[in-house]
């Protein structure tokens, strides 16, 4: 067991936790925006996957990681636009549409990838990292936390920016009202449909970037079905965070560690069957749900389409 305490093991574990946690963080923050506005965005898994595909293709042909993120985000927004159209404009069931979009884009991305690359999985060049001067020299933690792709720092900053935004802006007020009492927002002269559509598009953008990060940075390649439930973990994080972005960050760190554990334990050659190790993140989801889900408070209008004049 000594190997668990070596410096290099710990560094790689925490580094891996950050890499695995960032897509969850972006998905969780995105889902939080939708849920605040009263939209249960089950399709987020599809948004991540399409974002991962678009982001990978963009980065593969242009060689730019930033363009990869941008197109990943736009890819997520395409799926989000479908949610906005079907669930918000037309008032269809959010759960049914969400599941349909997830399954649909799983199939679509797999097909597109096959058409384009056949059965090969080309890799991207190694990701550029930005070492934060000073902090990255701290033993063990420095390399694990402060020598990442620049997007990692942006995502963490985004958490605090959203926390500020929710409290101190009309955007925060409008989102909160759209999820708690949409009729009040409507009566105040703000379009509920526009507010919710914007929230869902923002979700798509963030989830898409999360997917692109997962493909381009986490794996360095695109594999069909590669998000593997990350979007759903994002939904769990958003539900447990009760509208507070910082809690999403904490949750993402927790799940990031358990995901990194699966790789790290195998690398370290600990004699545990891989099946058991790979169960870890999902066992963690269930454990966290059992402990905290009783206290999760969801917006009263979550999942309900808004029709003026109906109560």
């Amino acid at each position, binding site marked *: 067991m000594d190997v668990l305490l070596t410096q290099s093991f710990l560094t790689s574990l925490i580094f891996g936790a950050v890499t695995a946690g960032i897509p969850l963080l972006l998905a969780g923050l995105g889902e939080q925006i939708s849920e605040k506005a009263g939209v249960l965005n089950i399709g987020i898994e599809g948004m991540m996957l399409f974002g991962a595909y678009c982001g990978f293709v963009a980065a593969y042909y242009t060689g730019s990681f930033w363009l990869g993120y941008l197109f990943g985000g736009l890819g997520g927004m395409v799926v989000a636009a479908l949610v906005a159209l079907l669930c918000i404009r037309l008032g269809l069931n959010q759960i049914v549409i969400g599941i349909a979009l997830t399954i649909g884009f799983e199939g679509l991305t797999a097909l597109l990838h096959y058409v384009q690359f056949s059965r090969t999985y080309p890799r991207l060049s190694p990701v550029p990292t930005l070492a934060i001067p000073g902090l990255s020299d701290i033993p063990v933690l420095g390399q694990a936390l402060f020598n990442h792709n620049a997007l990692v720092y942006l995502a963490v900053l985004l958490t605090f920016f959203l926390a500020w935004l929710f409290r*101190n802006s009309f955007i*925060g007020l409008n989102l*909160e009202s759209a999820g708690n*009492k949409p009729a*009040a927002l409507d009566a*105040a002269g*703000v379009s509920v449909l526009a507010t919710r559509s914007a929230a869902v598009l923002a979700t798509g953008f963030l989830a898409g970037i999360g997917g692109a990060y997962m493909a381009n940075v986490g794996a360095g390649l695109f594999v069909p079905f590669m998000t593997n439930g990350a979007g759903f973990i994002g939904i769990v994080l958003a539900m447990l965070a009760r509208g507070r972005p910082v809690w999403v960050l904490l949750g993402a760190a927790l799940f990031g560690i358990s995901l990194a554990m699966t790789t790290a334990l195998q690398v370290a050659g600990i004699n545990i069957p891989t099946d058991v190790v790979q169960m870890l993140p999902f066992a963690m989801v269930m454990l966290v749900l059992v402990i905290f889900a009783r206290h999760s408070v969801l917006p009263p209008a979550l999942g309900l389409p808004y029709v003026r004049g109906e109560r």
Partner: protein
Amino acid sequence: MAQETVSARAAGASSGRVPAIAVTGITKRYPGVVANDDVSLAFHAGEIHVLLGENGAGKSTLIAMLAGMQQPDSGEILLAGRPMRLTSPRVSLDHGIGTVFQHVLLVPSLTVIENLMLGGPWWQRLNKAPALARFAELSGLLGVSIDPDAQIGRLSLGQQQQVEIMRALWRGEQVLILDEPTSMLTPQGVRDLGEVLKRLRDKGVAIVLITHKMQEAYEFGDRISVLRLGRLVGSIEPGRRATMSQHDVTEEVIHLMFGARDKTGGEVDVLLGQHRRRADRNIANQSPRLIVRHLSTVAERGECPIRDVSFELRPGEILGIAGVDGNGQKHLAEVLAGQRPAAEGEIVIGDRNVTVGGVEARRELGLRYITDERLGEGTVGIFSVATNLVLKEIGRPPLWRNGLTLWDKVNQQARDQIRTYDIRTPSERTPIAKLSGGNIQKALLARELTETASIAIFNKPTYGLDLHNIRLARERIRDGAEKGLATIVISTELDELLELSDRIGVMFQGRLAGIVDNAGQAERQIGLLMTGAAQG
């Protein structure tokens, strides 16, 4: 040219003054109904204009159009004499037309000031300083004091309504529209509201007040207009109103509302809030049918639990439960019906303790619960009237045999009940959600008040019904009690309880604040108990 004459007609309605807002020849159709049929009305600054009418008379449609929520099919809206299209709530608000809707439209999780700021430019930061200044200004105008940082969910309904009035006036105080604002208030709350409205009127606000209660129309209205079936059937002008006694006003309104219909019927009593109290009957010597001792429930999100409630109920007695909505009435009804577990205390029916027994056990002992959620909890909307009438017998003989439904018998029985209880439905196979509220209530009563019933609990039995159906439902409740049914009527309409009950209990914050005999001074005492000011 045509437009000018129309405008002139609306403006000329009152001594040459240009009304703050007017509608001329406005018509609005919904599938199957004409909600507003060529209605022309003028609302003047410094005047409280009461719109009276039954449910379905078109009052709510009219204000929805003024509030920018609905668009008229024809006719036009004039603002200070100029035609204006109010295409959205924002347009109405920007023109200083504010509306207080029947149901509270505030976000409960936000504070007072945040709710008032709602609707500001979305790209901006929340800047509280100017908002607080406006808040202080409006507080002065209304003559109320509320903490701007209090969470809405923690305020009383009366205070929430004051915040709603502020919100309606927030972007300009030309026109204030209130849709049945008194339905959720205590008697004291109604008086406070009256003060606020008169104050605003004297400052030059044009106030439109919608109500179905004659008393309020008389007390608050400078001008009274009556709508019936989507048409304006008559108005009492301020000049004439000032010379009329309450009796004259009442007579005229009744004439307008009911036309040639029989004016001695129960509907007029319902409108006037007159209650022919029930004759005293000797029930004291009977042994109680239902005994409740120290009953409490567990609080759930957004619901008021009951605490330490005790009472006894005798056969043939009607116990009214008064109180402002949300003071534990729902929990009381559900715990008695067996739909909600009791945390403490006990419930005894006859001599059987049924505290732990569920719905089924209590039903067998004759307890019936007629819920206020007629669609949803009371009936299954997509099921036929016939199925809903036997909803609680499913699987049992004689209508079911060996797990199979005997549809002929079910439909036959339904046809009988539809005839007996005058349920207006195209057929027994019509989905019940297509029926009007009054007819759904009739079906519910037919299902619940059978021969085997011995205790009946009514939760808001006349909520949302028209005058005719209100009268029928009340008669049904009274008849049940005459036949020996031990009855509980939970209602927020005090008049209803005063008419029906032998005794009236008052719920306040989950406690039974007191039980009052329904006699001379009951009304005053109940009013005090409702606000928690007195202990009974």
